[in-house]
């Protein structure tokens, strides 16, 4: 379960928002470009600490200036899939997925089993030895997803995961995300600016406008005017 209260002064406005996501729940953050959606994810991950607020994940405090707590990014156990399908281009697909497990000093046997499992779960086992820099956009996104999930995160966050993907890959990544979030019973935040994505994948939608939550509710009820985006 994720409970985050974030206050942060940005260049043009201040971000003041409360985010909540339960186990197995996918919360979609919608809004125009520059509304503060990515900053919310960066704050929760610890990459950009909020000015004030608090962030709790499964009861443990990740950030609370009042208590003097600010858990470093590398210890937060958050699977974060960045925009534009970030893979380590100089590693093979296998080494990409093993990266987080190696960093966590897991045993070689454990790593091997886990990497094989996640490659087959995301349908990229044929690409195991391919240099990740040579993959297509859809393949990269599956590698990024498998790499994040292999670390068994307590929270999954995806930033614009469907842009630059073709229709088949969009459907596949949506299915995979839904399956794993349900299986692992972890909260999940997805940033997108397309209503169709939120309907396909979301359990709940938070519409953000200039750093404030403008609307909250079920994906089917998102008012068209709530996110004035050219791309629906």
């Amino acid at each position: 379960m994720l409970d985050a209260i974030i206050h942060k002064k940005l260049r043009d406005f201040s971000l003041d928002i409360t985010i909540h996501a339960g186990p197995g729940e996918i919360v979609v953050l919608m809004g125009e470009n520059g509304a503060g959606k990515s900053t919310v994810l960066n704050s929760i991950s610890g990459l950009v600490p909020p000015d004030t607020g608090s962030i709790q994940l499964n009861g443990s405090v990740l950030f609370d200036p009042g208590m003097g707590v600010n858990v470093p990014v590398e210890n937060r156990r958050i699977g974060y899939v960045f925009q534009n399908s970030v893979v380590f281009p100089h590693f093979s697909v296998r080494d990409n997925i093993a990266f987080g497990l190696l960093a966590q000093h897991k045993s070689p046997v454990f790593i091997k089993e886990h990497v094989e499992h996640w490659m087959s779960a995301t349908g990229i086992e044929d690409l195991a030895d391919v240099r990740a820099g040579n993959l297509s956009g859809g393949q990269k996104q599956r590698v990024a997803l498998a790499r994040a999930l292999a670390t068994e995160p307590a929270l999954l966050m995806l930033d614009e995961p469907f842009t630059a993907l073709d229709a088949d890959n969009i459907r596949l990544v949506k299915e995979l995300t839904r399956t794993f979030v349900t299986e692992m019973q972890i909260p999940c935040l997805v940033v997108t600016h397309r209503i169709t994505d939120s309907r396909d994948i979301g359990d709940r939608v938070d519409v953000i406008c200039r750093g404030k939550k403008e609307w909250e509710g079920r994906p089917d009820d998102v008012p068209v005017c709530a996110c004035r985006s050219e791309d629906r």
Partner: protein
Amino acid sequence: MNPSPVFSEKIQRTITCIGAAVLVASVTLYLAFPVVALFFRTTPELFFSSLSNPDVISALFLSLFTSTISLGVVILVGTPFAYVHCRNDYPGKVIVDTLIDLPLVLPPAVAGLALLVLWGRMGILGQYLSLFGISIAFTTLAVIMAQIFVASPFYLRQAKSLFEQLDPVYEQTARTLGASPLRIFALITLPLTANGLVSGAVMTFGRALGEFGATPMFAGNLPGVTQTMPLAVYVGMEGNFTVGLTISILLVIISFAIMIAVRLLARREASNA
């Protein structure tokens, strides 16, 4: 009668072409002729026979030895320095940035004098070292220190710009996966900037190898101890001209090899991008 517009356009284009060709040819020849002249001034027999001259051999090995050590120090200290410098904001960062570039514009003789004033036997720091019987000036160590001083900016500037240009998202992703800063630096940052770093290192080696101004001021000109190849060329002018010529040709060959290496690396980098 005025020439037709088509005709005058043709003449104009021809004149432009000739002008461009003359410009390219004159620049190229101006740079290439003196280097080519070196090769014409000697014969292969003379060149190969003077290769075994002890002055040539000692200068060659001293130059290669000191430049390699200098390069090693610059890489080992410069790489983490450039990384820490890029990734952190600290007071006086702009001043540090300027100081890094200073040796590029500072006349090498001034650099040599500055090193002597600081580390020489009567120097500001050197006088205390000499109390312990340690003397730096006019030793091989001084050659290395002079080379590091003048050549390090080539590597530091390259490393700085590579680290600044690297998309932060790679390091951020690695952090969210639980990797420590050291692990990220070794496994993500360094490999993704390696080609550029190597080409910076090659340029640094070249500059260290060609160092002339600071070395005689700070290290002197002792054969076998501080007489590097460029110094031996200078001495050859007054003594054995063939030796000077042979060393010059060796330096030209090494410089060419360095430029080719940098170009190949740059091409590899471009194809990897």
